[in-house]
């Protein structure tokens, strides 16, 4: 069968198509159809010719097969040092083979590649730091995902995710109207406790344009309220765009580069429309990676810079603490052993390791912050990165992968894990659900609100007195 009803090479372009694909619960029929899906070998050969250039080809051909990448990969280690989990083996038997055969591969090979690309690599890029030749297999797996996506070999949830971005410019079915309403609702909710708090929509020339993760308006609207409260306390001149407010990109996990471009351009047009001084994104790792680190290239910006300076939420928090815009009540600092999850997407891949530690120095009582081992740029993936969290078909593999983080956390002895990244936060929640090690986990926002000093003039007036 060339193309299935659900599993095919056509990206999701309409709400109707999206709903139809969603109706195939768990992708049962989708994966059945995938077994019959033809590989368009000419198209694959053409894609390799046009996009597989000297960097990738050199990486593939010069690999000295020294095996130094093996121990760098948490999936190799957590899977009992299974040799088929060695990064070099994984990339050479998938992308390497595809390139050597110039795209002349069959359906079974492509399905195997799909499993390796999404269940045996989270694109955490740790291996690239350990390779003497500087071969970054995470980068190559991301590239492979793009080739697989274009041929229809992509996990069901990620085809949907990429479709969401194409239809809603958001990773979930949150329309711009829903978004603005949620902001209004959240501002109203806070009226009593925070008089004067607003969530300004589409304010031009603000100091900060705030963007978020669609999960927030969809499932955790209080996160938006918390962001608003902190901006309010800090006295920031900020705004949210009514359009271009979604910073994430499941399209990046799916390898749907066209949808990545659409998504990031929507955020950049909001910047161009509202001309803020800076953009601040929420506590999400891949959102920052997609919009700030990789996004400029998708949007056709060869200098690799977004239209305005962009900060990850942790950068804004560190700055606000440093400049005294946010002041922590020393009595309310964390006084229990606490550890910190380094998100691969903004720590290894955007150099923010010391920024989060600066925050720890303000919010944790000295002596209570315990580092994981390894940490900073060398930290292991939470176990759910790169889309792994969201793929039902690979749930058993994902759950096994979580053991790495479980053991890292257990070794610290901390019962509280600060995870300023949605994916990491989810993975840590899931590992607690799966392995019940008795930990709590948190974003920064609720912690900050619980310990920040509120200036007198922002406190509600006691009317009775």
């Amino acid at each position, binding site marked *: 069968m060339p193309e299935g009803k659900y599993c095919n090479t056509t990206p999701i372009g309409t709400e109707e198509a999206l709903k139809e694909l969603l109706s195939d619960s768990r992708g049962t029929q989708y994966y059945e159809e995938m077994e019959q899906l033809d590989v368009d070998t000419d198209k694959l050969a053409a894609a390799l010719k046009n996009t597989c250039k000297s960097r990738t080809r050199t990486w593939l051909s*010069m690999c*000295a097969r020294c095996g130094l990448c093996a121990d760098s990969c948490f999936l190799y280690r957590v899977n009992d040092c299974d040799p088929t989990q060695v990064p070099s083996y994984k990339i050479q038997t998938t992308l390497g083979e595809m390139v050597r055969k110039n795209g002349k591969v069959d359906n079974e090979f492509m399905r195997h590649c799909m499993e390796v690309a999404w269940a045996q690599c989270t694109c955490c890029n740790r291996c690239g730091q350990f390779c003497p030749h500087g071969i970054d297999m995470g980068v190559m797996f991301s590239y492979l995902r793009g080739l697989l996506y274009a041929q229809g070999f992509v996990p069901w949830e990620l085809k949907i995710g990429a479709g969401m971005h194409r239809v809603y410019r958001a990773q979930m079915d949150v329309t711009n109207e829903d978004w603005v309403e949620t902001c209004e609702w959240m501002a109203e909710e806070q009226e009593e406790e925070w008089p004067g708090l607003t969530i300004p929509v589409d304010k031009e020339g603000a100091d900060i344009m705030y963007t978020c993760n669609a999960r927030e308006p969809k499932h955790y609207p209080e996160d938006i309220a918390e962001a608003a409260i902190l901006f309010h306390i800090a006295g920031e001149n900020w705004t949210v765009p009514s359009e271009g407010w979604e910073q994430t990109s499941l399209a990046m996990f799916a390898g749907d580069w066209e949808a990545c471009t659409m998504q990031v351009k929507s955020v950049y047009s909001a910047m161009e429309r509202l001309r803020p001084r800076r953009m601040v994104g929420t506590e999400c790792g891949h959102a920052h990676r997609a919009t700030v680190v990789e996004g400029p290239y998708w949007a056709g910006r060869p200098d690799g810079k977004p239209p305005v300076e962009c900060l990850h939420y942790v950068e804004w928090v560190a700055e606000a603490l440093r400049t005294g815009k946010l002041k922590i009540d020393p009595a309310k600092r964390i006084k229990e052993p606490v550890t910190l999850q380094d998100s691969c997407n903004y720590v290894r891949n955007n150099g923010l390791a010391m920024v989060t530690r600066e925050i720890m120095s303000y919010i944790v009582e000295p002596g209570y912050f315990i580092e994981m081992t390894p940490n900073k740029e060398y930290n292991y993936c939470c176990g759910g990165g790169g889309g792994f969290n969201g793929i039902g078909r690979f749930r058993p593999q994902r759950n096994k992968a979580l053991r790495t983080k479980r053991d890292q956390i257990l070794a610290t002895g901390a019962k509280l894990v600060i995870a300023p990244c949605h994916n990491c936060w989810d993975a840590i929640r899931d590992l607690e659900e799966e392995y019940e090690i008795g930990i709590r986990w948190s974003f920064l926002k609720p912690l900050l609100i619980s310990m920040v000093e509120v200036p007198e003039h922002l406190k509600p007036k006691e009317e009775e007195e």
Partner: protein
Amino acid sequence: MYDFLTGPMLWLSLAVFFGGLAARVVWYVKGLRWNLDRVPYGHLTSTGWLWALKSVIFWLIPFGSRSWRTKPGFAALFFLLHFGLVLVPLFYTGHTMFLKQWLGVSWPAMPAGLADALTILAICAGVLMLLRRYALPEIRIITGPQDLAVMALSLAPLVTGYVAAHQPENYAFWINAHILTGEILLLAAPFTKLAHVALFFCSRMQLGLDYGTKRGGRKGRGLAW
């Protein structure tokens, strides 16, 4: 035979070696695409170049990178092999004397005892690296015929050279074998993984630029692998 090997054959080998490697470097650089690699090649800053340099240097220093320190045994074998393969050909007295006669250029040579020691250590390191390939399942699975061939090609000139220097009775045979295996090594370099003698610098610099600009460099995070 000797005259042929040290005459036309030597010129050919050197031409293929340098010409072939230069072609691979040119092809590599011309194939870099800012939009596909997602690295701002056209907007590189001095920080980017500094990182490119660091990326090369820290890996050339024994135990200079975190990866080397994580695997000290392998790193020791690696550096012993490469010291022998790079330093002995360049600074062995026989080679500098030959070069002086041949082209009239010369530079200081290393003591013969040091050259012997480096050669023996490199051969031992190479053999141990081959054994490691088969002893460890995670390396065995990625080992292919080319990896063995490359090691054989690399060790052959060291073995034959050492024997030639220490076996005066069969000197003619061993010196010809030594020159021939050396020339085969030069001829093979551009077409095999031996091309890493040039591409290592390209690939390491590329990742250094990537980290030095896009992935952390702009945030001032100095990461010396």
